[in-house]
């Protein structure tokens, strides 16, 4: 009998894309609501976005069972923090906790590609982007998931400061207003849905600012 290879995987990819954009006093976090496996759609109405703390929201694509477990784990740790410190965790604190939690399972990872968004202690928008084992970085914007290869270059084009070496000399990118950022995110998902089969159905947008958290929805292509 020829040597047999294992053909069962503990992981599955449920597809989907997530994006987060930070502003001077707001943060926009968005993800599509399609959950799929292979070429099959499991549901058109699944939220990949989870509120971890008052000013901290996480969007995750990848294997949603692992995502769910990760969200529950972080929620429990946040409760313990609140009991001990009598206050909510700040976004940077939660960012470090997420990183540690992911690395804890370095040798059987959470198949979860995360993007964390919120306001820091001074009320400025912040976005943290992760890989599956917890390597993270604070950035101004990021995308993860099946559509990220389509989305990220476009965000770079719109949001990234131009290199000072380029000619003609260009102004640094002007700070984006909240409404402009939300509009950009909608455009980005509409474009991604055209070419990425795993992204579509509906877009869920969460905006965090000094007034609190608000949620918005937009329809996307259903094919």
């Amino acid at each position, binding site marked *: 009998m020829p040597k047999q290879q294992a053909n069962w995987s503990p992981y599955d990819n449920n597809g989907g894309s997530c994006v987060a954009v930070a502003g001077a006093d707001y943060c926009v976090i968005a993800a599509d609501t399609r959950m799929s496996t292979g070429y099959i759609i499991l549901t058109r109405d699944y939220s990949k976005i989870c509120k971890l703390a008052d000013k901290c929201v996480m969007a995750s694509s990848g294997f949603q069972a692992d995502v769910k477990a990760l969200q*529950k784990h972080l929620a*429990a740790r946040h*409760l*313990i923090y609140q009991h001990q410190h009598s206050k909510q965790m700040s976004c940077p604190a939660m960012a470090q906790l997420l990183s540690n939690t992911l690395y804890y399972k370095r040798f059987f990872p959470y198949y979860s590609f995360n993007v964390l968004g919120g306001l820091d202690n001074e009320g400025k928008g912040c976005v943290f982007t992760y890989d599956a084992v917890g390597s993270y970085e604070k950035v101004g914007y990021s995308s993860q998931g099946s559509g990220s290869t389509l989305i990220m270059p476009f965000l770079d084009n719109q949001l990234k400061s131009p290199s000072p070496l380029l000619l003609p000399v260009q102004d640094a990118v002007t700070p984006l207003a909240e409404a402009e950022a939300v509009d950009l995110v909608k455009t980005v998902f509409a474009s991604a849905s055209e070419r990425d089969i795993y992204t579509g159905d509906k877009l869920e947008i969460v905006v965090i600012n000094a007034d609190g958290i608000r949620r918005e929805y937009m329809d996307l292509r259903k094919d």
Partner: protein
Amino acid sequence: MFRNQYDTDVTTWSPAGRLFQVEYAMEAVKQGSAAIGLRSKTHIVLGCVNKANSELSSHQKKIFKVDDHIGVAIAGLTADGRVLSRYMRNECINYSFTYESPLPVGRLVVQLADKAQVCTQRSWKRPYGVGLLVAGLDESGAHLYYNCPSGNYFEYQAFAIGSRSQAAKTYLERRFESFTDASRDDLVKDALMAIRETLQGETLKSSVCTIAVVGVGEPFHILDQATVQQMIDAFEIVGEQEGPAAAAGQEASAEPEAEQGGAAAGEGVAPMDI
């Protein structure tokens, strides 16, 4: 209660069938400053007296939030109380994680009681020296439980523990029949009145007491000082030192009822005075 040859270990019975170490642990509860609890059909109110060791120090925290639907007030060794609160919080978090629903209060108090019982049957342990008033809301309604160092627990409509608690208990016994259908604010007022009973003439101010509420549609939270002071003023329940006959009568009857709490206070307050 006097020293005898059967009280060295918790694992030694007396010929009369008593475990003296456990009974001594219950004495520790009586040394702590008062904590009271009362419940209606939909709300439970916990209150405690804030007693600082000296004028220079702050008072110890005696009311802890365990979960959105459960809170606890303690009397006795606050350190033991803190450790048990941490245990209760962990149990609630783990239950929520597994079952995605809040831990029923009845289950929590049984776990707490079993934990306390273990310490009464191990020669290398000592009983917890703290009494806990556990207030919680679950599907079966509003509950108030009292957990002893002995490992027993009882459910109450209203109860008071700690030093001078007998005064509060007397007040609660008089009023408890009205609690079931009382409004939330009336319940808080009764709690403040009960606390005032334990103060024995000292003015009731929001700096002297702490009040916490949990109820239907109201997660467990400790009321802030301003709100409590407002309620005290609104109900006009400042202790009357000028002493109209009623107040003087209450104080006189409270004294002999202050049992070993008063006697111990005479000897010099226990080091773990809370």
